[in-house]
């Protein structure tokens, strides 16, 4: 199953490394990353495969959200379907 991870917040050193480490620790495979810094805001979007994820979806979402809070970032994970449904006919 594929999901989208979004990371939004102030730019800082090591954001990508940190999020990727967390995902790797939980068995999540990163398929694609795009990131930009708009004004001082850092925005990263990752397409990930959670088929091999070792924890359930809710737990993974919690882990990411809490880590985001510690670093002043808004980190979400959502199933890809919701974006497909909303933006593609």
């Amino acid at each position, binding site marked *: 199953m594929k999901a*989208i991870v*979004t990371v*939004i917040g102030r730019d800082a050193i090591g954001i990508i490394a940190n999020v990727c480490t967390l995902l790797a620790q939980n068995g999540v495979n990163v398929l*694609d990353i*795009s990131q*930009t810094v708009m004004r001082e805001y850092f*925005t990263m*979007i990752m*397409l990930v495969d959670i088929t091999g994820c070792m924890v359930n*979806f*809710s737990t993974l*979402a919690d882990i990411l959200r809490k880590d985001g809070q510690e670093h002043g970032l*808004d980190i*979400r*994970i*959502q*199933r*890809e*379907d*919701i*974006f*497909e*449904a*909303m*933006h*593609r006919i």
Partner: protein
Amino acid sequence: MITTNEILETIEMISQQHLDIRTITMGVSLRDCGHPDVKVCCDKIYDKITRRAEKLVKTGEDIEREFGIPIVNKRVSVTPIAIACEACETEDYVPFARTLDRAAKTVGVNFIGGFSALVQKGFTQGDRKLIRAIPEALTVTERVCSSVNVGSTRAGINMDAVALMGKTVQRTAALSQGLGCAKLVVFCNAVEDNPFMAGAFHGVGEPECVINVGVSGPGVVHSALKECAGQPLDVAAEVIKKTAFRVTRMGELVAQEASSRLGVPFGIVDLSLAPTPAVGDSVADILEELGLESVGAPGTTAALAMLNDAVKKGGVMASSNVGGLSGAFIPVSEDAGMIRAASAGRLTIEKLEAMTCVCSVGLDMIALPGDTTAETISAIIADEAAIGMINQKTTAVRVIPVPGKTVGDVVDFGGLLGRAPVMAVNPASPAVFIRRGGRIPAPVNSLKN
């Protein structure tokens, strides 16, 4: 692959613009729960609801987490109790309401709808017993919602029922300090698959069990309209259509997912724009964004007609099955913009009545002075029912005569029910008209002027 902008747009809709799934409502048939003995009947009802809806809340929460979209309410609707329990040899229907309340608490839903009767053409014994029980039922229970259908385009209006419901609303208000009336809807042309409370019930033409979903999103429409300020109204209508499409697609996705996880057939997505008291989640704000200084100003009905139609046009293509009420809701107490306009005297009951001609659903969550007579309440119901009957649409009345309050006072119902300024009612008496009773015959459906 979805683009970055599309992803960010979706996230902004959810986090900034209050986009949510307003309700996942499981309809459960109670037609097999009738029994002459009250105790047995109540046990059957309780067992069936708690068995069918056991995983409803958990499933809703799981979907919420995985898709990252809030699902605000999980609810249950049941076969109108007047039908389901008619075989029961009892005069008192309050125990059925208590049973529904208990079942709702067990499965963790915040409202359960279906303490209802359909009397558009006349009463059965069960209908009379149910209506008699409404005031007490809505006072002693917390989560039970009640509705009574008093008219339809095919049957006309049962004016005896209208007269009775005026008294019932008044009695409910007296017993419950007004709050019970927030859980009581009087309908014309009630729909059988409405997922929204307080008017939800599981119609007799519905399957054994079904999942209906109600979407929302006034804030999203409002934000989208800000982008086309000053443009002609057909441009605005296009923007509303596109936004409604996206919102409804999300509803469809959630509905299909909930249906497959629960193993229950998917019924409909209801395309309603349902406001909440939260700032930025208001239908009134949309109308004002279209260029009205305040909702209630001349032009409000036209703006609302366009909004309502555009929402339907966008939503219909987004879902395989659209149903329920599907339209913009204009509840006064649940919409920050409506509260503002009503408090400032810019929105009157008469204007709200005109607005109900072009949108769903009716005079909704309006606080009336405590001394409003039963006949006046009945006459308000009759007016709304007439609008529904003639225009072949659903209309409803959910008014709250608040004991001890008068025009200008503000009443707080708490939570999603919001707060409302008590609105003025025309003091001229309709009492003689209402006391006539009888029926208003079904209307002719041609010669449409």
